[in-house]
């Protein structure tokens, strides 16, 4: 349960409009809100981006460190995704330990990047079994107006494409940082598309009030080869199997459109 309680009347209005194929903000059922992607906005971070999805605003910062690999993957770098719902972003967000929603958001974005093998982790090994690059992807939600998952996964991808990692050299088993930077090796381009089920119709990119009125949402992440890398159903309702397949086809089309937007910036 999140965000502002939209009055029941408002929810009903949204549901009725969607049932007749229209939306309160004038969009078509399969239209995204205007999207703006900026990169390199934080100089101190190795990579960064800001994504505006309508009024939803998300900043992603990428920090790069050196650390230990996982025992079972000695030749691979490590990455983690974390998200913060900072209290300035919504009257519903509070300081303190991360909420279920925030953890889910970070894990869904993580799954898209991990399962599509977006980051070439094998190229991030410095000394096998000892020293590897550790990539921290931090999602900072600055204004919550719905569909944080798509805004965040787009911002994460844009930030990764913008990331430069410092070059390290190994001298007598010591790892030394040089002044050179190379782009983070990226192999794939995962993009998530979220659809909401309102009045048994699928609506792309639900904004805040639509999220209040929806029964369930479905996020599908496609990689650059049009394969599904991750899926997450959310919300307290349920979906028909046919709706899920319909959503997959819509999401495939939309993911391609969104990917072009990030890759060109």
């Amino acid at each position, binding site marked *: 349960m999140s965000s502002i309680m939209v009055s029941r009347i408002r929810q009903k209005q949204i549901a009725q409009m969607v049932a007749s194929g229209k939306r309160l903000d004038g969009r078509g059922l399969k239209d995204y809100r205007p999207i703006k992607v900026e990169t390199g906005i934080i100089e101190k971070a190795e990579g960064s981006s800001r994504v505006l999805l309508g009024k939803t605003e998300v900043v992603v910062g990428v920090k790069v460190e050196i650390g230990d690999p996982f025992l079972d993957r000695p030749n691979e770098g490590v990455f983690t995704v974390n998200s913060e719902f900072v209290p300035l972003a919504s009257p519903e967000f509070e300081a303190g330990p991360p909420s*279920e*929603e925030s*953890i*889910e958001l*970070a*894990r869904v974005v993580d*799954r898209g990047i*991990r*399962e*599509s093998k977006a980051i070439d982790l094998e190229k991030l090994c410095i000394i096998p079994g000892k020293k590897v690059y550790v990539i921290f992807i931090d999602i900072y939600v600055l204004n919550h107006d719905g569909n944080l998952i798509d805004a965040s996964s787009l911002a994460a991808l844009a930030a990764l494409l913008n990331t430069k990692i410092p070059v390290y050299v190994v001298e007598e088993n010591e790892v030394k940082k040089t002044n050179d930077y190379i782009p983070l090796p990226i192999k794939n381009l995962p993009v998530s598309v979220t659809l909401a089920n309102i009045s048994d119709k699928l609506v792309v990119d639900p904004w805040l009030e639509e999220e209040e009125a929806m*029964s*369930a949402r*479905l996020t599908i992440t496609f*990689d650059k080869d*049009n*394969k*599904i*890398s*991750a*899926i*997450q*159903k*959310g*919300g*307290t*309702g*349920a*979906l*028909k*199997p046919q709706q*899920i*397949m319909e959503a*997959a*086809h819509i999401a*495939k089309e939309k993911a391609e459109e969104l990917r072009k937007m990030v890759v060109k910036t």
Partner: protein
Amino acid sequence: MINENGLRVDGRKPNELRLIKMEVGVLSNADGSAYIEQGKNKILAAVYGPREVHPRHLALPDRALLRCRYHMAPFSVEERKSPAPSRREIELSKVIKEALEPAIFLEKFPRTSIDIFIEVLQADGGTRCAGTTVAALALADAGVPMRDLVVACAAGKVDGVIVLDLNDIEDKEGEADVPVAYMPNLGLISLLQMDGSLTIEEFNQSLNLAMDGCKQIYKFQKEALKARYVTIKEEVEECLR
């Protein structure tokens, strides 16, 4: 992972479930409880409620508050797991709650809470699905009015083959995992996740296979519930004698 005869690491056919055992009413303190074994998975679920909400400000004026905690015992996996809830467990608690919620008539119990506790005693892949299946039984055992039972099962892709009910190794080494929770009488899906790499067609096959698996497990679920009430009936008759 699939041998020349098309069999899996544990000798199953691609569309075959693991051995499943369920029992209802296993804990005396809880309002409802159930236990499941699916392969080497051993999972307990208990339901408390509808009861007064603590802390009280969380109470909802028009329906019951549904809460769910999925938790793994430190000894349930190969390497000891810290008992503190991990990010994975918090996410699974959320998706399992959302899988059960559409089945429950929450509006019948405003200002109360229904608390579901799922404890994984031993994990062998597919614990979120087995946990959902057993939690639905515990809810039914607690007498919580429901639109349908919820039953969950995963399908996925291992060695290029779409398989049902992945075990731990298949989950880790396989190409994709698609957990699904299904309400068989309503024909609705209330939990759906996926990780790995699948084409839309492969995903469609996995989804359908998972739903088939759910329909099979649903039969066991009903039998387990019935068995519970046969026992109660016998106990009552014993008392009357």
